[in-house]
């Protein structure tokens, strides 16, 4: 059974159909990437999984249990957490408080403290700035905080929405290597990226989204080898 299974979801913004029957699955321990151009529906897919957008049709299940239709705060409780597009950290809360908000539903104080230490190990710069308010962090640090905050929920599956956005190439490398470490430690990841090259290099499988539909899926190597993908997303040929 797949960890996350999305079956034929249709999502709308008003009367505009943003997702036209998207299906995908993520198996336990995998990194799966969802690539596509601006406006293809990548973020909408993640927000529908998280419960921020309600699908009109289709089902989403986590470990076989249907989660579509639940409000966002209950989806988190089931084990889905997201580092949203544009980071969306709480700029007026301290780094420490941002992480505490990530663990909002957890009651195990010791577990929260040790997870926070783990986040500071993964991202030492956050540890140095734990008492600074989020708004004073650089873009890269904010991205680290967004990922750390999502990890604080101890999710079954972590959804990352464009972690490379607006970051310098070196920082992108750093973030992606940490994403791989997080995955190696047992967190299943669904990664949305415009930087297809980076995404395909860390993911085992990939889906290509175009105008609200999945137009191609396969292993990362297969997808990277597809001539259309090469032309449109990898800037080759």
């Amino acid at each position: 059974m797949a960890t996350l299974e999305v079956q034929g979801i249709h999502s709308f913004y008003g009367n505009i159909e943003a997702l036209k029957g998207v299906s995908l699955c993520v198996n336990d321990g995998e990194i799966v990437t969802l690539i596509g151009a601006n406006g293809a529906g990548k973020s909408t897919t993640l927000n529908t999984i998280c419960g921020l957008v309600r699908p009109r049709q289709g089902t989403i299940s986590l470990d076989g249990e249907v989660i579509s239709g639940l409000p966002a705060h209950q989806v988190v409780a089931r084990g889905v957490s997201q580092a949203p597009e544009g980071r969306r950290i709480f700029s007026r809360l301290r780094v420490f408080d941002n992480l505490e908000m990530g663990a909002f539903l957890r009651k195990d104080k010791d577990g929260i403290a040790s997870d926070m230490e783990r986040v500071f190990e993964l991202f030492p710069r956050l540890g140095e700035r734990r008492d600074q308010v989020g708004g004073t962090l650089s873009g890269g640090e904010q991205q680290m905080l967004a990922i750390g905050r999502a990890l604080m929920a101890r999710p079954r599956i972590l959804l990352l929405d464009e972690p490379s956005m607006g970051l310098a190439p070196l920082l992108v490398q750093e973030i992606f290597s940490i994403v791989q470490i997080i995955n190696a430690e047992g967190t299943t990841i669904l990664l949305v990226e415009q930087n297809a090259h980076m995404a395909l290099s860390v993911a085992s499988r990939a889906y290509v989204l175009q105008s609200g539909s999945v137009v191609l899926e396969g292993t990362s190597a297969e997808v990277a080898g597809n001539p259309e993908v090469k032309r449109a997303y990898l800037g080759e040929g």
Partner: protein
Amino acid sequence: MRRRLSGPVDVTQLVVSGIGLVILLFVVYRLVATLMGGTYGVSTYASQAIFGLAQGGIYALIALGYTLVYGILFMINFAHGEIFMGGTYIAYFVIAAFDRSGFLESNPLLAIVATVATAMTASVILALGLERIAYRPLRRAPRLVPLITAIGASLFLQYAFRGLFGTGVKVYPDTHLHVAGIDILGGRYDIGGMVVRPIYFVVFLMAVTLMLALWILVQKTKMGKAMRAVAEDKDTAALMGIDVDRVVVLTFALGAALAGAAGVMFALYNKQVTHTMGFIPGIKAFTAAVLGGIGNVPGAMLGGFFLGLAESTFPTLLGLDSQLKDVIAFGLLVLVLIFRPTGILGEVLSRKRA
């Protein structure tokens, strides 16, 4: 300011600055004249300032209700003055019963605590009812819609209380509580020709205590941090597992509890309770919230005390009739809106955000 220096001279700005200068000159002139004239002694100003601090504490407590709700929903809850009135009104029946049974005389502290608790509970119930019935269905409506609804709710509550309890003035009973030989609730003492009412100190201290409690709640507790998270970004807060509706309910409840407590404190020295008693304090507290920078918790506290002090001391300081205190209060509002629309603390906050 920067724009004014670099760009072409803006006529409106020039006129507005001129008006500001004239007002400033007038204020300085009257101030100097009054102080040089020496008509009033220090004791006059001191007693006015003491009253101003108590009144300011009341304004600050009510203003917090406006600012908390605005911070979360970007909506002005114009019925908040009626939440203040409702709690005070309901609690009147409790304290009047205590008075008749003799409990207020035999055990004043407990009686007052029970009265305050009643007012807080009644205010919270009113506010939560309002939120559930009038505001929540309009959460996604344009911002003007809940604003108009709030004005409607305000009138509804006023007339509901009028219909239920009549137009007559209810009077809070005289209360006395002796601490170290001083009647801290009902006493009046003559100290060097100055009449001192300890109740004003009590109200001021209670207000400060409640504000400290709120500050700790908002800054230090997990629920307080969740409130601030929701104020900043509702969707992301939901992604953390925060139930946004619950936080909104909590925010209304907190603001209402403060207003209810403020109502009893107000009635302890102001005595009279009517169905319209919430209107003026409500709109003054709104002014205080705007003065301090709406949405900003310390701003509401500061704005409340500032307005209370300004109202009580400015008429004398400027040599004006004390009847003009409302003119001064709302004049301040207009001036703040013209010269510093973000309020006293507003800009500091926006700089921090950037």
